[in-house]
């Protein structure tokens, strides 16, 4: 019998239409092609032309279709009818909702604008939301950065004018050795995966430094299973070895860093440790040509790393001297740190040698001439092909700022930042701390704030303190407790507001942050604070206004809900004024636009803010004649101007002779042009500007033409960070603004202008013998925080989260997979299922982040595994450290930036009998949305 095969149609029609917009399933912001059939979203794939993802898409992005259609979507504005936390609501009209909001906000603005605290989560429109808050006049605005990775961001910006995070990336095409510290997923999610893929293709070596070997670390060629919180020691031991062997890039250090900058070296001088500057305030170096001091940016000079200089009776030495003295000390040797880090000294040496060999034995040389800021012409670009990347594993510790600094110093000593094969910035970065605004906090009734809320302090004079020295902000950002808290401290807002410390507020206005659950430390405590009442029965935090798109845990705690659309139903702007989607070779921004219209009574939150701004008659949102300045957010995106010629989007602006990019006037068709261009816009960095950006004239000129700065601003990398020294000097009693006495010691110790390591602060509060085990969380690649669980496809992958224990602990406690363990910290206790993992630091346990759910949330069944077997580690973490007997409760944060120290957590483990479900159990919340379907056959076309 002859074989006959069925005839099949191998060319079926794929969709009616493709609309290109930007993914929002995480903050990476990849470009997506949304396929529509009969006007409905049918399939989502990556946009091949997009600078971020070049066609690829992660699991979350592909599952966007079920996020967009999740049964948990809110359907209309909600007014609370039951007690806070119950989840009982009634649906109301938008008009009523907005009138209610105005009735709370208007009186505040007219009397004491600071009584509004407006905090946003992983907001992708911060330049807009902060503008709104500024026009309102409250100093109390920030986004989630303070508990996320502000250590990384500030350490990077103060040191080199940009950070890892999403400010830069490894030179994937040239790197030969890539070291990854403490990253499970990162904001730069697809680009890192693509980068790793490229390294693998070329056979470049990857070293993963992480207590846990999953994901990126699993494919690393070498795994360094470091003890949590000790990366600083490890990195400085590498620095020690490299310095000792002279394996540092002296040319680079002398030209582009402050290694040659002269420091006051007289211990008795009030300026001890500050730079020697000329009359213009420019730091001075010794010019090897003349042997004389010269401003660092003088054309033709050759800064000296070795010399000394006496000036006005005071000896000045280059920063390099201090570096050598500090790190050549045997206390930084591999032998001195091996036990603490859990890495044998011989291995530390070998890694140091590999770094040296790759950086200096195998340089990358590109024949690309360029000219530096001193006017010197270079025929080639010479680079050190070692690159690094780090994220929250470094930054979410109370020593994270200094550890991130240590890593940057290592990179810079190797000459591998902004050189071929090293780490490169993404425009508009690099941008030194001094080019950023400083924090503003001066409030006036009925008037805008005196300037942007957040910024980079240069010394005590820039702190956000009131006349009487008390904190001006509700989160106590920019105070002596955490002076360099450039992203604010969202994790302190609720507890401070509850305590009325530093003052009481009236309305807490939150936007896309699940603060009543996974976003908070001490989840149970936060739930109690949100529901706590005063003697008269009213809530301690009188009003809570919240915008969410879904039925999250936080929704249950708000009084009024402004339901947002999904990401496929609204305009958004991913702006260069904010955190753009640039890549090292191109500046890029993007939009979202309503590829489908909402089928519910919901509105894009930014448009609602425009409306609220007008109803409150905020300047910036109201014209002189009282009419609204912006009809909606799309109108704002097109027409708003920050500075002349500078608006939210850089592409397709209006010039004198027609369309132009960068600076330009508004163009009514701008959004249409973006849509036609695939939802984004890219401007390529000219070839001669592609490396050495902080010092490269071609780059500086290009950046000015793009509107990143008003004039070229070349600068030096700050191995030595002078503002830190200024705080140290204040702690030593210098200057008029003085820290409270109880903080002096800590500031002197931790604000070292050269990187140091100190043990995580909680080690001094929690007994490491009683709590010997480190407990961590990691982001699952297929889940985004709490939102993923409402997605029917994703929750099948991560429906619950065991606590993973290393072999040693499994054996010691006679455990097998599926047994339950009681995990206790100095703050709380949870009882959860466990599982074995061998590729794990032997003193560390961990779990996936934010899988655990409150019953009734997210339109999930009450018996969903997320609620019965899943759990949050957050119950064990407190925003304050346990009392130490000094009468104070110290914050569980980095003392410099206020970054929440999630990963300092220490616990003890015991075997437990299996409870019915994970403990503690939180009472169910009522669901404001209809019940979810019992089965799915998701197909929109036939």
């Amino acid at each position, binding site marked *: 019998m002859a074989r006959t095969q069925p005839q099949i149609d191998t060319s079926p029609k794929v969709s009616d239409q493709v609309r290109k917009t930007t993914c929002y399933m995480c903050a990476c912001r990849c470009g997506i092609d949304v396929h529509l059939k009969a006007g409905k979203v049918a399939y989502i794939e990556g946009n091949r032309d997009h600078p971020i993802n070049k066609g690829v898409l992660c699991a979350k992005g592909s599952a966007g279709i079920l996020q967009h259609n999740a049964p948990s979507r809110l359907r209309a504005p909600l007014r609370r009818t039951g007690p806070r936390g119950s989840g009982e609501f009634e649906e109301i009209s938008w008009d009523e909702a907005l009138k209610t909001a105005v009735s709370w906000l208007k009186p505040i603005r007219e009397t004491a604008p600071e009584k509004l605290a407006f905090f946003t989560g992983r907001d992708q429109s911060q330049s807009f939301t902060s503008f709104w808050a500024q026009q309102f006049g409250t100093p109390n605005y920030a986004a989630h950065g303070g508990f996320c990775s502000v250590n990384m961001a500030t350490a990077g910006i103060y040191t080199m004018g940009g950070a890892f995070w999403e400010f830069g990336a490894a030179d994937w095409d040239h790197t030969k050795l890539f070291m990854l510290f403490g990253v499970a997923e990162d904001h730069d999610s697809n680009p890192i995966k693509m980068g790793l893929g490229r390294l693998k293709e070329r056979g470049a070596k990857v070293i993963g430094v992480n207590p846990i070997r999953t994901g990126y670390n699993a494919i690393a060629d070498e795994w360094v299973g470091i003890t949590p919180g000790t990366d600083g020691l490890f990195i400085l031991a590498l620095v020690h070895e490299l310095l000792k062997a002279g394996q540092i890039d002296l040319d680079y250090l002398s030209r582009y860093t402050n290694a040659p900058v002269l420091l006051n070296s007289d211990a008795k001088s009030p300026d001890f440790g500050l730079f020697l500057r000329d009359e213009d305030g420019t730091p001075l170096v010794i010019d090897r040509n003349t042997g004389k001091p010269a401003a660092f940016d003088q054309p033709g000079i050759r800064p000296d790393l070795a010399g000394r200089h006496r000036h006005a009776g005071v000896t000045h030495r280059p920063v390099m001297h201090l570096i050598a003295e500090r790190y050549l000390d045997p206390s930084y040797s591999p032998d001195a740190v091996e036990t603490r880090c859990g890495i044998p000294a011989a291995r530390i040496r070998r890694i140091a040698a590999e770094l040296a060999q790759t950086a200096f034995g195998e340089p990358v040389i590109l024949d690309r001439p360029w000219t530096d800021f001193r006017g010197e012409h270079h025929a080639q670009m010479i680079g050190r092909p070692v690159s690094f990347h780090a994220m929250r594993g470094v930054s979410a510790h109370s020593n994270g700022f200094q550890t991130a600094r240590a890593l940057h110093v290592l990179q810079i000593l190797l000459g591998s930042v902004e050189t071929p094969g090293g780490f490169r910035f993404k425009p508009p970065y690099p941008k030194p701390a001094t080019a950023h605004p400083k924090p503003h906090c001066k409030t006036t009734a009925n008037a805008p704030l005196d300037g942007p809320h957040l910024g980079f302090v240069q010394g005590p004079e820039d702190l956000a303190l009131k006349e009487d020295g008390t904190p001006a902000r509700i989160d106590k950002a920019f105070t002596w407790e955490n002076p360099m808290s450039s992203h604010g401290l969202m994790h302190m807002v609720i507890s401070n507001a509850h305590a009325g410390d530093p003052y009481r507020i009236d309305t807490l206005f939150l936007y896309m942050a699940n603060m009543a659950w996974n976003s908070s430390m001490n989840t149970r405590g936060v739930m109690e604070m949100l529901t706590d009442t005063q003697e008269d029965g009213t809530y301690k935090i009188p009003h809570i206004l919240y915008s969410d798109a879904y039925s999250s845990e936080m929704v249950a705690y708000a009084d009024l809900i402004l339901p947002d659309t999904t990401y496929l139903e609204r305009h958004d702007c991913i702006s260069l004024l904010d955190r753009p989607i640039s890549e090292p070779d191109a500046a890029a921004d993007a939009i979202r636009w309503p590829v489908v219209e909402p089928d519910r009574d919901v509105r894009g939150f930014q448009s609602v803010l425009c409306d609220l701004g007008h109803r409150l008659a905020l300047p910036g949102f109201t014209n002189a004649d009282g009419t609204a300045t912006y009809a909606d957010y799309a109108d704002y995106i097109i027409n708003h101007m920050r500075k002349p010629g500078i608006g939210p989007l850089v592409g397709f602006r209006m010039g004198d002779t027609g369309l132009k990019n960068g600076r330009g006037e508004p163009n009514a068709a701008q959004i249409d042009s973006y849509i036609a261009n695939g939802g984004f816009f890219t401007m390529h960095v000219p070839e001669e500007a592609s490396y050495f950006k902080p010092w490269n004239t071609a780059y500086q000129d290009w950046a000015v033409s793009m509107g990143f700065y008003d004039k070229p601003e070349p600068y030096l990398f700050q191995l030595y960070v002078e503002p830190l020294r200024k705080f140290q000097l204040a702690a030593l009693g210098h200057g008029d603004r003085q820290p409270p006495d109880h903080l002096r010691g800590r500031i002197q110790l931790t604000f070292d202008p050269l990187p140091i390591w100190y043990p995580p602060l909680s080690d001094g509060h929690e007994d490491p013998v009683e709590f010997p085990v480190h407990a961590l969380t990691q982001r699952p690649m297929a889940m985004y925080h709490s939102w993923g669980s409402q997605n029917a496809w994703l929750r*099948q992958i991560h*429906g619950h989260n065991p606590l993973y224990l290393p072999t040693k602990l499994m054996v010691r406690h006679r455990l097998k997979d599926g047994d339950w363990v009681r995990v206790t910290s100095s703050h709380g206790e949870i009882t959860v299922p466990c599982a074995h*993992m061998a590729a794990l630091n032997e003193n560390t346990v961990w779990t996936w982040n934010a899988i655990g759910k409150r019953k009734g949330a997210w339109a999930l069944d009450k018996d969903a595994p997320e609620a019965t077997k899943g759990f949050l580690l957050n119950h064990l973490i407190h925003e304050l450290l346990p009392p130490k007997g000094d009468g104070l409760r110290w914050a569980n944060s980095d003392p410099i930036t206020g970054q929440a120290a999630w990963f300092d957590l220490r616990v003890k483990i015991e075997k437990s009998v299996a409870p019915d479900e994970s403990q503690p159990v939180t009472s169910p919340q009522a669901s404001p949305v209809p019940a979810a379907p019992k089965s799915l056959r998701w197909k929109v076309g036939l």
Partner: protein
Amino acid sequence: MNPAPSIIAFTTFSGLGFGLLFWLGMDPTPPRGWVAFVFFFIGFALALGGLAASAQHLGRPERALKAFSQWRSSWLSREACCAVAALVTMGLYAAGLVFADVKIPPLGWLGAALSLGTVFTTSMIYTQLKTVPRWHNRLTPLLFLSLSLAGGALLSGRVTLSLALILIVGALQVVWWRIGDKALQASGTTLGTATGLGDGGRVRAFEPPHTGTNYLLREMVYVVARRHARKLRGIALILMMVLPILLLLAPFHHITALLALLSHVTGVLTARWLFFAEAEHVVGLYYGKR
């Protein structure tokens, strides 16, 4: 493998039914008239009932007819064809005996052969599966055939024959279990070969692809506790072999014969449950289960 009641019932009862039909077809002095009707009715009811039960297991039972098409390569298709051929042949033969009082021996022999053939093809569905080493064994068809013959003999009241056959069944069953217990290991398939990672060291399943369950786990990964299985094996042997033999050796009585039959069938059902429940599909290795 998932011990689905429909499949256990199907294989057990159709085996029994076809066993009975075999003996009826081979009988030199077959019953006639209403006695024949009763015997054939029981045989057909069991065989058809079993087939109906197996159709239950299908995702699209309304398309069951399509299953007859691939007899050249598929044992399942062959089974379907064979079963229908056996039933039709035996039907004709039976009609002769019941309604016309005619006996056409060649038809009986052919029917008997086809009945046994059906049992054989059924057994081959399992035997052919390399993926289930416990089944992938030459003794599996013998076991199925002997069970069918013994059950059929018992049903048709052939006391001595059934005594002998039940003894053979018991012995085969014990040997089959012993071989089966080592079969996965003997197959050479391990998590190491399944992942190709075996040369690098000891391989252990870490995270499954989904925290929840799926079709594969439901269908192919069924874990019975060892201790539990051993006890059930004992029970199966006693019910299937020991008790029927004792009952048959006792003075003949319809009640004891019926009890012997019931005991045997319960024993076979137990053994058949174990046949599935104990069978490890190699896909279980991927999930860290064996």
